[in-house]
């Protein structure tokens, strides 16, 4: 049962991250998600200080506001300060992350937050961190509820806004010309990424959440040329990563979050080498056989 809860929580988180990650990869904004995942830290600490609990709506909203603020700052330094986009990302998130670290150590006594847990996650504790109602009923692991809620929210966001997300990602100028606000959809997506990151950090930590945001979509991108299929493949990959990651960690008695990200990396490498369309190995074999025929 313990394994089931961990795998379920891992899958929910990985699928949520992957679905949003598809759009980040296609918008060439993969590193922005890295920035957000770190920059939400001060938001998490402050929301925790104010609300005093880890699963409140306050926390999700507070952190997502910080995430949107981060993307705004990145844009601002880039467009107004004439700073290169990557330098602008680097300056913004390290600074916000550092603030988070300072607050975390400063308020360490008052806050039931562990720096190690925030950074690396502790998915192994999922089954013992139960949601218990005031009446005393045990409803199952708390993280599973949060991750499940986040996944439903993300699926609704993508299904309802599919057309707008698709168009603003592919051709922002045309989207603007027919009256779809690219800025609005940009910040909606960034808000969703921020909330998902916050909802996921307890499970996998602020650092490895980037692996779940980017590696499955990058893998799916190599396997298909259809956005809908890319989303479906990413979903399957999310579940596979969670299952294989758990058993890998169990067999070597290591970190589950680390094992999940490692599996994500291995799957990407496999797609890179063996993808029927883009695979490096397949291509070279194909080229050889053409040479032989000629």
């Amino acid at each position, binding site marked *: 049962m313990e394994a089931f809860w961990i795998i379920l929580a891992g899958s929910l988180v990985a699928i949520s991250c992957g679905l949003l990650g598809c759009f980040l990869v296609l918008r060439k904004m993969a590193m922005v998600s890295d920035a957000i995942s770190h920059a939400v830290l001060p938001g998490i600490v402050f929301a925790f200080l104010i609300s005093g609990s880890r699963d409140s709506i306050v926390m999700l909203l507070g952190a997502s506001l910080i995430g949107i603020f981060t993307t705004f700052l990145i844009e601002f330094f880039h467009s107004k300060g004439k700073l290169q986009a990557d330098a602008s990302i680097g300056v913004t998130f390290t600074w916000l992350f550092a603030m988070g670290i300072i607050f975390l150590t400063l308020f360490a006594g008052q806050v039931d937050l562990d720096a190690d847990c925030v950074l690396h996650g502790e998915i192994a504790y999922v089954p013992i961190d139960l949601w218990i109602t005031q009446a005393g009923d045990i409803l199952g692991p708390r993280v599973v509820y949060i991750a499940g809620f986040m996944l439903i929210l993300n699926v609704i966001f993508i299904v309802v806004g599919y057309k707008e997300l698709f168009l603003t*990602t*592919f*051709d922002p*100028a*045309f989207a603007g*010309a*027919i009256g*779809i606000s690219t800025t609005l959809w940009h910040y909606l997506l960034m808000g969703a990424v921020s909330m998902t990151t916050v909802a996921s950090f307890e499970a996998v930590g602020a650092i490895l959440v980037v692996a779940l945001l980017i590696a499955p979509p990058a893998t799916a991108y190599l396997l298909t*040329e259809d*956005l809908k299929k890319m989303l479906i493949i990413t979903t399957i990959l999310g579940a596979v990563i969670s299952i294989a990651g758990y058993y890998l960690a169990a067999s070597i008695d290591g970190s589950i979050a680390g094992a999940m990200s490692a599996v994500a990396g291995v799957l990407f490498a496999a797609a890179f080498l063996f993808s029927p369309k883009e695979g490096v190995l397949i291509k070279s074999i194909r080229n050889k056989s053409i040479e032989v025929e000629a």
Partner: protein
Amino acid sequence: MIEQVQNPVLEIHDLTVSYDKKPVLWDVDLSIPSGKLVGIIGPNGAGKSTLIKAVMDLIPTNSGYIKLFDQSLGEVRNRISYVPQRETVDWDFPASVLDVVIMGRYGKLGLFKRPRKADKEVAMECLRKVGMEQFSKRQISQLSGGQQQRVFLARALAQQADFYFMDEPFAGVDAATEKAIITLLREMADQDKTVVVVHHDLQSASNYFDWVILLNMRLVASGPIESVFTQELLQETYGGKLTLLSDVSDLMRKEQYPHREAK
């Protein structure tokens, strides 16, 4: 030579646009009649693309106003189509030809509604018009430059607009595609639709357009091609590039300009 017209479909008044305080367009003031095939012509960096981006409200303007069908863009957006430069999008994007053409229907669909069967039929019909119907399922990463441009044109047709703005539709396309596109644009103008095209090839320009806007940061001329495509005005537009200009004047003399096949 700036000819203002009665009942214009496009009216630009005192338009100034700048990037980082560097002016790109100065005090442009023009009007265009309906049912014309219009060319915006000028050297590199003259602000040709900037002009149509300003009309589509994609960049901020410093002064002036723009009216389409005597209204602001927001009120007539459904009647206006915009075709960006082909290179502005990532053609490795995971989408099929039909996916891209159906985007032309999004404006009419409105928020959150999905394309229906009728929209797909319109999209297929538009693909047929540009000679690409057999490519509808093809991934866009597998298209040639000319095919990409045809797909963009099909998407514009799917908008079923009355006014089309096209940014460099002939850049980097093969001769067959260029001919197919200009034939289609001519048909559209004959149906009283207005088509404005950013173009940089002077030689073909004299055969393609019935109305020309000569631009080099400021407006040099706007009017019927017969009165605007003169050596003095072209010289004024292109400044020092004299060798090119003498080529053009030779060409014009040889071809007994103006010259277009009768309908």
